[in-house]
Structure formats: structure tokens, C-alpha cells
């Protein structure tokens, strides 16, 4: 049985449909990320699960019990906003024992929780005397001591600078797993979601776009929006010309003829290529299939990788990432040959509303 079930939840604010028939499950101990751009309905969903909002339609079940009508304080669900909202006028100890004392649980739980996050020596400190990482650990201990099994995190790391974000992200997942918490973590950062979660739900305009493991979502996105939101992608549109032997060819105005593996989903298609799947040759190789001449516009050095901005002779702009140091120096103005490998294209049917609208974050 799933630990949390959300079934057919919809919610409108006036004319705006914030959530539209959202259904999913989370199993015990799972770390789930809800990923989506601003205004996708992520926070609304979190508030419905926590009981702060009532859905217009649909139900929420926790451990098989329908909690849709139960007020937040009786759900055993801990909601943690950005920065964790540790009570500034209480010490670490008072913060952690808060929920336990209200629910009439023993203080030993609080002591135990603090021991497990390794902060038993800081019980008399106030939140503003702790580092960011320590505050996060106090917040987790507070949830644990209150008997919370489901932790809802609303953009917990968004206010932090990148280095601290990466550090706390790692610790958050490690501690949540160690403490056996089921976590739903809301974020708008695809990178954060991929690195921390067991499962990702991509939300857009109140609708679920895709549910899956990070790798699935990255390599097999269900639509153009997810493909673009989860990571950078080069988009080429074209018309299917020929199908045979598990391959099909696409004619595109901006590159020419392309050969792709798989079955075309329709007559007009959109092909997506991740920057790391594009191969660059400095000299014209032997094999000419899917090979296009291009001029280098800009070379960016990113440390672990080198990013190259290119324009093909027919005017298509591409980005490509090199993960090793090129033998021959590539500089802006160089002429190179770009290969779009036939088995690395992500293929979609051409969207009815057009590409720009299909990938728009609004």
C-alpha cells in the first residue's frame, strides 16, 4: 500500500485553475520531488497535502486513511517552508520539543531526535546562532520529535547560494534516508530535483506532465516541455520523408536530411538533442551521414566541460558540450563538422500550439 495517495485533486482560485486532476502515489521512505516552473501549482499541491488548503475535488489518503477533511494539526504531516521557519524566540531544545509537548509525546523523543541529527550539544542555542546546515538538522529533528512521518519541503534550499545549496542537498537526502522519513520536496530547479530525489513529478499549469525516475525524465521526457525544462536541449523541426529498417529520415529546413532511429510519432516531428550528445569534428570525417558544416560562434570554458555555440551553414543555432580537452584548439570563427548521432535524438510529434508555446514556462 502506498504511504500517500493523492487522487484526482483539483483546485481553482477564481478563474485560475491551480491544480487539475492531480493523481500520484508515494511509497514509504521515498524521496519525491515536485518540479515545475513558478506558478505551476507546486505550493498549492503541498498545501493541500498538508491540510492548509482544501481541494475543490479529489482526495488525499495517508496510510490508507482519507485525511481530506482533517485539519493540518491532526495529520502528522510536517510542512517546512523556505529557510525552515525555526521559531526565532525559542532555543533549539524548545523548537524540537515543541511538537512533542503539544501532542503529549515524551521529551525523550526530542532528545533522541537531536542525538540522531548530532546536535545534542547545541540545545541551548538560538536558531540565529546556528549555521545553515545546523538549522536544517534542527528542522528535521523537530519533525521527527513531533512524530511526523511525512515531510513536506517547500523550496527549502532556494534562498541559498549554490555551494551551500549543493552541500545541504546532499545532507538533506542522507539524513532523510537515515531517519526513515518520507519526503515531498518542491523545487523549480531541475538540477536540484534530479540530484536529490528517487522520483520526480513534473508539474505544469496544474497538470502532471510526467512521473518517473530522474534518468527516465532526462532521457525519455514525455513531451517537449519536460525535455526542455529538465535540461538544455537543441530543437530541430522537420517533416518525415522515409521509413525503413527501424530508421526514418527527416527533412529539416535548417539542417537538411537527418536520419533517426525509431518510429516517427507523426508526419511532422520535433527532434531534441542534448548538448552532450552532439559530436564535433575539426576535420571532415570519412562517414558523412547526419554530418553538417558549421561555424563556431563562441567558446565558453566551464571547467569540467567546454561549451561551444555553433551555427550551421543553413542557419541553425546549436550548443554542444565537450567533456574533454579538444586536441586541436577550437576558437570562434573556426569551421567544424557537427554530427547529430542517429540514436541520440529524442523525438516528439510536432505540438499543436507551436514549439515556443509548448516549451514556455508560463
Amino acid at each position, binding site marked *: 500500500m502506498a504511504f500517500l495517495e493523492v487522487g484526482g485533486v483539483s483546485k481553482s482560485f477564481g478563474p485560475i485553475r491551480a491544480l487539475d486532476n492531480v493523481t500520484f502515489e508515494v511509497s514509504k521512505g521515498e524521496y519525491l520531488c515536485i518540479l515545475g516552473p513558478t506558478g505551476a501549482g507546486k505550493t498549492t499541491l503541498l498545501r493541500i497535502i*498538508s491540510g492548509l488548503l482544501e481541494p475543490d475535488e479529489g482526495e488525499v489518503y495517508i496510510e490508507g486513511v482519507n485525511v481530506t477533511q482533517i485539519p493540518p*494539526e491532526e495529520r502528522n504531516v510536517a510542512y517546512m517552508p523556505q529557510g525552515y521557519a525555526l521559531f526565532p524566540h525559542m532555543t533549539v531544545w524548545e523548537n524540537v520539543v*515543541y511538537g512533542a*509537548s503539544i501532542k*503529549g509525546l515524551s*521529551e525523550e523523543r526530542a532528545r533522541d531526535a537531536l542525538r540522531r541529527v548530532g546536535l545534542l550539544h547545541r540545545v541551548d542555542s538560538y536558531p540565529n546562532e546556528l549555521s545553515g546546515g545546523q538549522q536544517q538538522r534542527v528542522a528535521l529533528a523537530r519533525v521527527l520529535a513531533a512524530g511526523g512521518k511525512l515531510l513536506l519541503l517547500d523550496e527549502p534550499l532556494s534562498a541559498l547560494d549554490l555551494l551551500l545549496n549543493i552541500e545541504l542537498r546532499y545532507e538533506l537526502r542522507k539524513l532523510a534516508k537515515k531517519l526513515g522519513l518520507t519526503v515531498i520536496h518542491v523545487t523549480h530547479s531541475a538540477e536540484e530535483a534530479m540530484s536529490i530525489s528517487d522520483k520526480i513529478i513534473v508539474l505544469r499549469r496544474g497538470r502532471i506532465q510526467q512521473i518517473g525516475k530522474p534518468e527516465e525524465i532526462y532521457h525519455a521526457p514525455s513531451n517537449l516541455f519536460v525535455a526542455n525544462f529538465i535540461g538544455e536541449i537543441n530543437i530541430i523541426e522537420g517533416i518525415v520523408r522515409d521509413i525503413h529498417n527501424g530508421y526514418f529520415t527527416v527533412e529539416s529546413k535548417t539542417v537538411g536530411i537527418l536520419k533517426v532511429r525509431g518510429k516517427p510519432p507523426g508526419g511532422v516531428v520535433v527532434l531534441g538533442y542534448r548538448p552532450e550528445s552532439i559530436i564535433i569534428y575539426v576535420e571532415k570525417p570519412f562517414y558523412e551521414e547526419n554530418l553538417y558544416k558549421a561555424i563556431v560562434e563562441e567558446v565558453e570554458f566551464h571547467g569540467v566541460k567546454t561549451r561551444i555555440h555553433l551555427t550551421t551553414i543553413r542557419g541553425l543555432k546549436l550548443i554542444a558540450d565537450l567533456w574533454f580537452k579538444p586536441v586541436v584548439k577550437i576558437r570562434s570563427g573556426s569551421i567544424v563538422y557537427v554530427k547529430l548521432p542517429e540514436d541520440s535524438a529524442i523525438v516528439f510529434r510536432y505540438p499543436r500550439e507551436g514549439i515556443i508555446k509548448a516549451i514556455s514556462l508560463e
Partner: protein
Amino acid sequence: MLLLFVFMPSLYLFTYIFSRWNEIYVTVFAHPIIGNQYWTEIVRALNLSFRLSLTTVAIDLVIGIPLAYLLGKKDFPGKSLIEDLTILPLVIPTSGFGFATMIAWTASYGLAALLGLRVGVDTVVPLVNIPLIMLIVHVALTFPYIVNTVVGALKDLSASFEIVSSSLGAHPVTTFRKVTFPLILPSILSGSVLAFARSLGETGATMIVSGVSTTASIAIVRWEFENKLAPAAFLGAILVGVSMILIVPIEYALGGTIKGRRIIPLSVESFIVKLEKSIPRKMSWLRDIVSIFFLSIIILMPIAVLLYNTVIYWSCDPYTGRVEGGILYQLFGPSDYYSSIVSSIITSLLVASIATLISALVGVLAVLLMAHSRFGRFIKVLLKVPLVVPTSALGLSMVLLWGPHGIGVVDPGFWLIVLTHVVFSVPVITETGMASYIEGNLPLYESTARTLGAGYYDVAETITLPLVKRGVLAGSLLAFTHSLGETGATFIVMGEHRTISTLVVNMVEALAIPAALFATLILIVTSFVLVVVFKEIY
């Protein structure tokens, strides 16, 4: 330098007392004829004042916090009207409001009479032994200080604390007691201090409803009229001292959160939590209804009764039918209150305009100084002083300092009124000016301008002044209404001149009730219009 003129009067009373200690000691404690009669009276007046102010603040808190919760957390139709009603007592001429409250409660068809009670100015609240009407007036005039500061604090407080608390299992009442309340406690304290100081210094309304009881600030006005400067100065100094002792430490302590240890033992605590859990969640509407009910009784009802009375007294006394008891006869008849009302309105408008203009100029300089000098914080606290000093004590100080007994530059009369009003208007303007300085994030723009090559004076002229203009304007309007309605200090410094609010007191004392009705109505309508304009600007 200019600011010195603002601080000096508040502190001058102490100088006065020290320099004439022997004379004062003899008069107050060892008078050859009446012995320590004055001291006895001072103690009696202070006793009443403190009982009154403390009870007032206690009731203010009970009414004010739920009301603030309603205004700070919820949206409902008619909210802006409720907001206007809570600003009104801050700008309403107190003597007029006192008069309205008095007739609302004592008239034969007033609320008390409807309930079958007989209430007069001599009706006393048991236990604390305070005249009932005086208490009602003080509550009505001071509760907005609590409401305003608490609403501000609630709006600044991030909603996440309450959300987290409820997700950890706390009932809304428990959340309020353990999380919200401690976090807004500093604001509650500073609001209480302001309310306490205002109640301690309230003169205009109190004079009208006082009957035979004498509060400290009324005693100052009476003694000054009888030219008994020694006891008046002594009592004034005590009031100023108390107000300053209250305001300065609390203003300095603010800014940090109040951190407290748990006082309630765990067993009692868990009992309380259980008790709170048993309160139905749907009870909150009751709290809202009750607070709106209080608001209408203490603010709306007096105004309504006043309107009603003006109408029925318009041509003649409704009970005897005599024309002499009507408003028209009193205004245009032999006593000719019409011309005194007109001339006092002109005086009031002139005083308010000149004082506000001067205060705005000084206020802008003060804002620049506070923003850019190292002593900014110190100046800010000092500028709070005229806001909390009892006005009659301030007026007395002005007379003693500038008048014939002191430097002898300005005699009581028009210009001394202006000068006195400048003293309490400057802090009002700097307050709103500074608020817009901080809220507008001005230091950021100023430093940006500096890096773009603007000098100190360029920055002040091109960045600071235009951006604090609205705040200063709003403050000026507030100061203007304040000046129109000021009674306590004006009474002492006015000499032969009359402002409209002091005229109301004179009329009530002369039992010219119909004329007082008319003058009060003018005052209240004017201040309500100004409230609306104020909200438009701010």
C-alpha cells in the same frame, strides 16, 4: 541646532524645578498656610491618572489585539471602513470626541439609558474606582496605538511560523500563545507604552468628561490658569519623567526578539494545550464580531448620537420647545457663538498651516540627519519624547521657557501656540518620513547614486528628498490634523486666542451645549475627511 528647539521644552521643566527648588519645595510641601495641601492633591491626581492609564491599557489590549488580528490577517467587505475607524481617534479633536462620548452615554436616550442604567460623569467603575465615562473616552482614544503597531507586526511576520506550528500539531489558539504572541510581543509593548503615555497626557476630552475628578494633566491646566506655577511645574516634571523612563528603554530594546525561558511547568502546559484543543475551530468569528461590536460602541455610537442631537437641537430645544435652547439661536443670537466659532476656526487653520509648514521643513532636515549621521538612532529616540510627553506638561514647559517667566521672547498667544504645535508635529513628520526612508530601501539607491558620481548634496536633492516626499506629505497631513485637534497644550499657551478645540471645552464649561454640538460636528467631519485624504496619499 533646530532640533534643539524640539527637545528643549520637554526637558526644560527639570531645569526650572532645579533652579527654583527652594521656592517650589516651600509651596508644595511646606506652605505656611495650607501646609502640604498641594502635595496631597498631586498624589491624589497622580494616583487617579495611573489607575486610569493602566486600566485603559489593559482594556486596550483586550480589545486591540483581536481587532488587530482581524485587520492584519483577514480580508472582508467593509475592512477599509474599520481601518478608517481605527485611525479616526488618532486625528479626531479630543475635546470634540470627549463631548460626543459624554452625550452618547449620559443623554436620556443614550446606550446606558436603553439598558436601564443611569450613567453620569460621576458614575464610577467599581474595583478600580475610575469614572466610567473617562475610562471609555481614554480607551477609545488610545486603542488605535495598539491596533496599529500590532497590525504592522502581524503583517511583517512571515506566515510560515504559523503554518509550521500547525503542521507540528498545534491548535490555532496554541499557535497564537506559543508562537505568534511572543514574536509580536515587542510591538505590543511599544504600542502599550504609546497608549499609556497618551492616556497619561490626555487633556482635551478628559476636561470635558471629568466632572469633579482631577487627573494629573487636568491639574496642570487648572493650576496654570490660577497662576500656581510651582505645583504645576512639579507635577509636570513628574509626568515628563515617567513618560521618558517608559519610552527610552523600550525603544532601545526593540529590534531583537524577546527570548524567554519556559515558566509554566510541563504538566500544566500539557493541560493548557488539551484545553485549547477543545476549543472549536469555528469560534473565531465570535472574536471578530465582538471586536467590531466594541469598535462601534466606543467610536461609532458617539458620532451617531452627536449627529442625531445636532439635528434635533437645530432650531429649538426638543424638550421644552424653547428657541433659546436651539443651535440657531445660540449661534446667531445674543451670545453670538457664530463669530467666535468662525474666528477660532480661522485661528486653528492658521496655526495648523504655519506649524505644519515649519515642521515639514525641520522634519525633512531631521530625516536627512537621522539617515546619515552617526547619532541617527539616538536622535530617533529623542524625537519620540515629544510624542509621549503629556501635552499639558509640554504646554506648561513652553510657557515657562519662552514666556514672561523664562526667556521672555514669546508671550502666550498665537505664536506660542504655533511654536508648541511645531514641537509635537516635527516628530510626527520624521516618523512617517523615516518609515518611507526605510521601506523604500533608500540606502541602496543612495549608494548607487554615490557610485555614479553624485555628491552628498546631489544625493539628498535628487534621490533622498523625492523618495521620502510622500512619507513627509502624509506625516504633514497627520501633523495638521493633530494640530487642529490639540487641546491640552494649547489651553496653556493660548493666552487670549482660541482654537476651535479649546473653544469646545469653553462652551461645554459654559453649558452652551447646542453650540458645542455644532462646533464638535464640524471638527469631526473635518477630521474624517482628512483621514480619507491621508489614506489616499499613504
